């Protein structure tokens, strides 16, 4: 019994020592309420970026994003009645443009961590060919966390033919009552040379209202 108590005492001392030198704990395992956070390492590390000089900044409700001039801008209303921004230009396949869409998720029932977990799971369910990945991304300001989910899937093109499309979706928890999604996609054959992923990386949430 004495040995056990001594062991407990030693363990607690160790705990205090670890706490004292823990700092921000950047490499520390994720804590509390985050069973849905990413655990693996993404094949590519994506960082948010400042817009290039030839990009124009577009403001929406609670965010800004930048795009080159050839991308047409449309402001629509999403299925749940929220304002939705669409930036797009034609691709080599008429049915699948190069497109970036910003969609607001107001009063979400589930967190961005859980919804991004669910999205990654759905896109990975069809097998490894979907290349589904998810990573946590550092975003400017106090908002977050933010998650980037990337995958590929077939979409109908013309007639009975399909075309592979590459998707990137940024899911940022701006506050408890708001998640903002940025969905960027283009035919896989031209995704790398398109600007859609760069446009996504210029997204900045307005976190001034974050509680």
């Amino acid at each position: 019994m004495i040995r056990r108590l001594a062991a407990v005492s030693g363990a607690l001392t160790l705990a205090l020592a670890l706490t004292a030198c823990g700092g921000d704990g950047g490499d520390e395992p994720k804590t509390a309420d985050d069973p849905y956070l990413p655990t693996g390492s993404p094949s590519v590390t994506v960082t948010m970026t400042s817009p290039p000089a030839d990009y124009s900044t577009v403001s929406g409700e609670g965010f800004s994003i930048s795009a080159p001039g050839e991308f047409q801008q449309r402001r629509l209303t999403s299925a749940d009645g929220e304002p939705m921004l669409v930036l797009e230009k034609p691709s080599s396949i008429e049915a699948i443009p190069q497109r970036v869409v910003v969609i607001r998720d107001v009063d979400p029932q589930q967190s961005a961590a859980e919804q991004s977990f669910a999205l990654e799971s759905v896109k990975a369910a069809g097998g490894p060919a979907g290349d589904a990945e998810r990573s946590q991304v550092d975003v400017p300001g106090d908002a977050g966390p933010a998650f980037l989910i990337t995958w590929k899937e077939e979409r109908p093109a013309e007639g009975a033919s399909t075309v592979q499309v590459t998707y990137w979706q940024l899911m940022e928890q701006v506050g408890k009552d708001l998640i903002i999604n940025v969905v960027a996609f283009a035919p896989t054959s031209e995704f790398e040379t398109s600007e859609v992923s760069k446009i996504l990386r210029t997204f900045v949430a307005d976190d001034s209202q974050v509680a």
Partner: protein
Amino acid sequence: MLGGHDPARRRERGAATLETTGVTIIAAMLVVGLIVSATPQARIIGETFSYYVCQVVTLGQGGCTPPSSSPEAHKPTDPCVVTQDGVERNAKVSVLVVTASDGRRIEIQRLSNGEYRVTVTDTGGAGAEVGVGGGLTVTVADTTVGGSATANAGASLDIKDGDVYYTDKDGIDDLMNALLQDQVKDATVGDSGPIRWVTDQATDLVGIGHDLPDPDETYAEGGVSLNASAQATALTESANAGLSESALLGVRHNRNGSTTVYLTTTVSGEAGLQGLGIDTEGNPQFQGAKLEGKLQVVTAVTLDAEGNMTQVQATASAGGTSTGLATALFGGSGDAAWTNQQSGLHVWQATLPIKDSADQTTASQFLLAQGVGSLGAWTNPLLGTAAAIGTQNFFDAVRNHGTLTQQTYDTNSSTVFGVDAALELGVEVGVSGNVKTDSMTTTGAQYWDGSQWVDWEECAA
């Protein structure tokens, strides 16, 4: 020509033998068919007879319908929920400091096979949520509970996020001890990190540690964000009249590496049924009737670790005006007592295991009818084709060699009560928000045995 044997004649002799054999088989089966036609197995034998006659006549090249399986083979093997009790953590572990009213919830269900299903979730949930099988729950009337908690007041199918553990009677104590201990630690020192590690080691050393096993299933839900890419791709509503566009509801990770994706579609009135390809005119029960109401159908698609589809399951919960829709879609019950039931929850579930290419085609047609073109790397092979909508084929296949069930539930959640959070958090004694107990009981259960609805004894209360 040595021996005088003509190869052509030899081939003809073989052909004659085959024809003779075919005729003999047909004749023999006719005799056998006549002998057994009056037995209880007559239907299956008849189907088997027809199948083999078709195979012989078409030399195996025709579209012969295989015989359905025996009545016993249609009996559901998955356990069903017969009772349920839920207790929220902030009442159970009242010494904890909780920071929100929606404390983590542990829900214990006793299943028909004697096992316990323990669900641990962080979401508080509103109203009475009851498990109905297939990983789904029914949320009754939002926050309205008790006597008015009937399907008429509104019921929606949902999944409940969190971890699920299965254990038997011998294991339930250890599991609950591990869960409660784990949650005590979660609330006091977090669920990971160095402090948690030390605390785990310390409790193990003093002999009070209980290892929390890996969950058997993990669920996650989604909403607008989960469906954002579909909306960004389509930009416009493209649903058929009376049929909502299929939306992702959530996902389940299973311990065997498979994943189940849940999709939800709303069927509105007869137009919705026709959008799904159901011709209600062909059903005598509803001839000339105008079907009204709305029916939520949840489709659960299970894919193995390689992305192969292994099962498709459709579930609907209905009551009142939507009962007719559900009955038309799922085949309904010939039992007037079931058909006319207007109160309580009524849940139908149709499960088709994917065993061959015919099942794959049937499942693909069913999913296409709901606008499902892909699930990640799984691409609907009928995408972009002019394939006929085949929802009726799906239910025919389920009746033939799948599992079709219907259950009714009596919900009794009148024990929900609120604890006034008069105590400030600064007092830190931990009880805040609502304390709820839910309960529900199956009042009736039936399954389709291949030719008729029969009572599902194990799932009746």
